[in-house]
């Protein structure tokens, strides 16, 4: 662990994350014509926190209150059987629901795309959105499915053995995105924002 720490490099600091989210909020407003009938759904844990931050900015900029919530994807994962049974995250849909609305899924790191695929399946079971878009703080590449993000905080070229870890004030006490040099550890701790 201490080894990995030593090789960690901050690629985004607090102000960078702040600016990236501000830009994403503006882009959502622009692309959805004032965030009309938009619902922001974050993927727990850190995606949900980011969704709330983006919603806050949208309401600051244009005074519109965007419904915001969280959608847990654990039960829809395609790798459930590869690891011990895991605890569920929180699903919290806004009372407006998702039917007929533009849902913007929010996640911290976009990597293989499998989490997003699971989120699309989960979404399918809670309603029928008019459209689904994807916002991510970091796109680190290496997609394994035909999935792309509509709003990206930072495109971060990585090698597959590297790890990206997102820290957020509300959860971790500080804002930062770290790139951790590969140590050939098996991928673990995805739910902790480590991808």
């Amino acid at each position, binding site marked *: 662990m201490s080894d990995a720490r030593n090789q960690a490099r901050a690629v985004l600091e607090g102000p960078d994350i702040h600016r990236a989210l501000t830009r994403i909020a503006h882009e959502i407003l622009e692309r959805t014509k004032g965030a009309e009938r938009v619902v922001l759904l974050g993927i727990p844990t850190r995606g949900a926190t980011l969704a709330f931050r983006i919603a806050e900015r949208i309401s600051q900029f244009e005074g519109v209150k965007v419904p915001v919530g969280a959608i847990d994807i654990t039960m*829809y994962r395609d790798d459930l059987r590869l690891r011990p049974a895991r*605890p*569920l995250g929180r*699903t919290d849909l806004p009372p407006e629901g998702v039917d007929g609305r533009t849902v913007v899924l929010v996640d911290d790191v976009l990597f293989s795309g499998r989490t997003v695929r699971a989120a699309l399946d989960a979404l399918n079971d809670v309603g029928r959105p008019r459209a689904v878009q994807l916002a991510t703080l970091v796109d680190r590449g290496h997609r394994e499915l035909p999935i792309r993000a509509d709003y990206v905080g930072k495109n971060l070229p990585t090698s597959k053995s590297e790890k990206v870890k997102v820290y957020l004030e509300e959860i971790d006490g500080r804002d930062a995105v770290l790139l951790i040099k590969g140590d050939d550890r098996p991928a673990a701790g995805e739910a902790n924002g480590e991808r």
Partner: protein
Amino acid sequence: MKRHLISAGDLTRDDALLVLDTAEELARVSERSIKKLPTLRGRTVVNLFYEDSTRTRISFEAAAKRLSADVINFSAKGSSVSKGESLKDTALTLEAMGADAVVIRHGASGAPHRLANWVRGSVVNAGDGTHEHPTQALLDAFSMRRRMGRIDGLKVSIVGDVLHSRVARSNVLLLHTLGAEVTLVAPPTLLPVSVDTWPCQISYDIDAVLPKSDVVMMLRVQLERMNAAYFPSAREYSRRYGLDRERFARLHDDAIVMHPGPMNRGMEISAEVADSPRSTIVEQVANGVTVRMAVLYLLLSGSEPAIGGDL
């Protein structure tokens, strides 16, 4: 490796809280229009019921189906069991069918434990003799936590036929693990011999216990097991241990009343109390499905279970 749920005592505090928290999330699924989750697709759950129990079997069946597992119901009546097949041979048959979990209800205490030696999948005890019924205890704890906001420090009284009750034993073990203070209230004839080794207090006087209780759990008088004279008459029992309107009035304002069902209205609980808004009896049934989903999910969804005990 932990893989079975045979006794409520198999669960550590963390295990039990994980089941309750998982159930809390799954309860939200039960509120939406599509109640099905794909999580256990391709897994097979066998309900092996040697005793009649409509409510528990249906509850397990609904739980497994909502998680997309394949469910095979096997009831002793009309099966090869009535032709004399032994539990072991039945187990080997299930094994050959590739059961990932066997939910067993059996009249003999210890049958699930035996079964667990013979099958590769997870065994879930759905009630064995007068021994245990761990998922009932979990759903009771879940119902309690939802109503009272906590379990730690709650004063819970369990009243009635403790001797024949698997619900009482599982509840005592689980509630003790979760930090509640349990008092058993029953006539001396309806308490098991070993009860002084259980982590709870004993009382013969319901009226002394009620005013101090946060939760009162009434047990069913198991008329089908009343082959000896445990009490003089039904009327006498009802007068001394039944929860009627007057006793109910002596509970403090936030206290709740529970019953695992099926009830003998007018015997251990009066109809008025059973139907009061402070009775959780109906929500206990709904919570049963959710809690059993949580148990099946935590036992079957991963490469290894997250809860349970070893043999």
